[in-house]
């Protein structure tokens, strides 16, 4: 009865999802090309042949010797929620296995297999040990170091930074035994040293594992949730003429501490000057501080910068529009952009309201 109560619904749902995910993936032949799949899906962040880059280096002996295939596969499948690494839900199981097999050819390492037997320990005591031995690198609540997996703009002179242990993706992928092994033996070439060498006992380490495993039961995920948006753009209809609207926009932009970079017709550069529609204008604006802050959090945000307002005159109606910056965190899977997106949204709405209403 207990088994039914706790496991039946999640197991049933996962089986159903797996059936859906596997539908249509029964292609026969030589099997997926892991190297090609890695180049398509992974190398942008993890570097050519897993040498590292924006994402952590994978072609490391000590890393590959301390993680099993299940961890790698689940990490690819579920990603790291809000920490840039996306969930590759669209890849088939055999494609993920091919990627993992390919990664394992890049550095010699024995291939571990960890059991799923939970580690029993005292989570409360583990929390005390965590504060003393782990929090400095992994954060007081296991949120990880600022850098790897959090910011796309991390300093490139740091090969690896402490991962977020409280991340649902990590907790889903890492078994207790894998975490315990890492604590017991550490990882060469990283700041993670053996906790046995630090003087802790195996019992202490079991308590630490129990503490880390307690995260999903107590973490307030709402605080860092990626909020999907229902509207891709912010739109206002201006009560003024086109030229008046443009003038009011310039004034509002300056009033919020930004500077106009340039104004142009939307089609400028795409067609001959005589053919440009004069009723389609774009104002680009920025501020060094906000630009620096945004780029420092995630360089991909350049897709949205400089800030731009599109103005359209049609049938005597003037529409002013901007991309909704609240979509940034979910689009980039980066909760470090929550604050940035919200601040940009407030500024955008204030500018559009002041100019249009």
């Amino acid at each position: 009865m207990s088994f039914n109560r706790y496991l039946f619904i999640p197991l049933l749902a996962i089986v159903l999802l797996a059936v859906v995910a596997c539908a249509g993936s029964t292609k026969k032949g030589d099997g997926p090309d892991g190297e090609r799949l890695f180049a398509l899906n992974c190398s942008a962040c993890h570097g050519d042949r897993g040498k590292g880059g924006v994402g952590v280096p994978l072609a490391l002996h000590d890393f590959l010797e301390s993680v099993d295939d299940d961890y790698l596969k689940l990490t690819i499948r579920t990603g790291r929620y809000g920490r840039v690494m996306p969930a590759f839900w669209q890849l088939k199981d055999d494609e993920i296995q091919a990627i993992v097999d390919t990664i394992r050819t890049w550095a010699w390492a024995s291939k571990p297999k960890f059991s799923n037997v939970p580690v029993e320990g005292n989570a409360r005591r583990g929390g005390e040990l965590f504060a003393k031995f782990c929090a400095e690198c992994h954060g007081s609540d296991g949120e990880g170091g600022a850098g790897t997996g959090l910011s796309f703009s991390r300093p490139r002179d740091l090969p690896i930074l402490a991962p977020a242990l409280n991340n649902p993706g990590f907790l889903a992928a890492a078994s207790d035994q894998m975490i315990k092994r890492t604590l017991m033996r550490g990882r060469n070439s990283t700041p993670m040293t053996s906790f046995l060498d630090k003087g802790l006992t195996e019992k202490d380490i079991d308590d630490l594992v129990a503490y880390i495993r307690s995260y999903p039961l107590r973490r307030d995920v709402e605080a860092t949730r990626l909020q999907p948006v229902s509207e891709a753009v912010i739109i206002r209809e201006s009560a003024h003429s086109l030229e008046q609207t443009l003038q009011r926009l310039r004034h509002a932009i300056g009033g919020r501490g930004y500077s106009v970079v340039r104004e142009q017709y939307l089609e400028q550069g795409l067609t001959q000057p005589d053919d440009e529609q004069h009723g389609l204008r774009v104002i680009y604006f920025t501020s060094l501080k906000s630009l620096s802050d945004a780029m420092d959090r995630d360089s991909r945000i350049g897709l949205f910068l400089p800030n731009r307002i599109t103005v359209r005159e049609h049938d005597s109606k003037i529409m002013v529009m901007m991309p909704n910056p609240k979509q940034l965190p979910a689009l980039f899977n980066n909760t470090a952009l929550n604050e940035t997106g919200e601040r940009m949204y407030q500024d955008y709405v204030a500018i559009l309201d002041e100019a249009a209403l």
Partner: protein
Amino acid sequence: MKRLRIISGCLLILLYLLCSASVLASDLLMVRSLLAYPDAQPRLEEAIREQGYQVSEAERVDIDLVVSGFSPGNYRAISYGKPEEINKVAEQHPELLPFLPLQIVLFGERDTSLLVAISPLYFKKFFHDPELDILLNRWNQDLQTIMETVRDAGR
């Protein structure tokens, strides 16, 4: 009992992650090219033109990027499009105009380059129009070709 609770909790987390539509890898297109940044930009612009688009702007957005670990000058947002398509979108879906011209961000990372773009398919969730879907599908196909061209040029 405790083990069952833990396993059940993990399964629910996994289920939540699998179902989370906001973390889809396909919303963004990202590729790494082994071309160094100075070579990647002209190759990217050439690839865009090969797909029949005009490049309208290669904008620097890297002011102050040095604080993020980049060297100044290694970051561009390349804008491109076709005027007739912009006109069509302006008529039928003006709410899409803030995302036009289309854009690819290119930045150098050591001796390689990264290309990042929003997948045009991303906009399907906001604009439910089968006719627009045809255009978005083609944009996406062209964008993939462009990015793969630059990626493969360095191999």
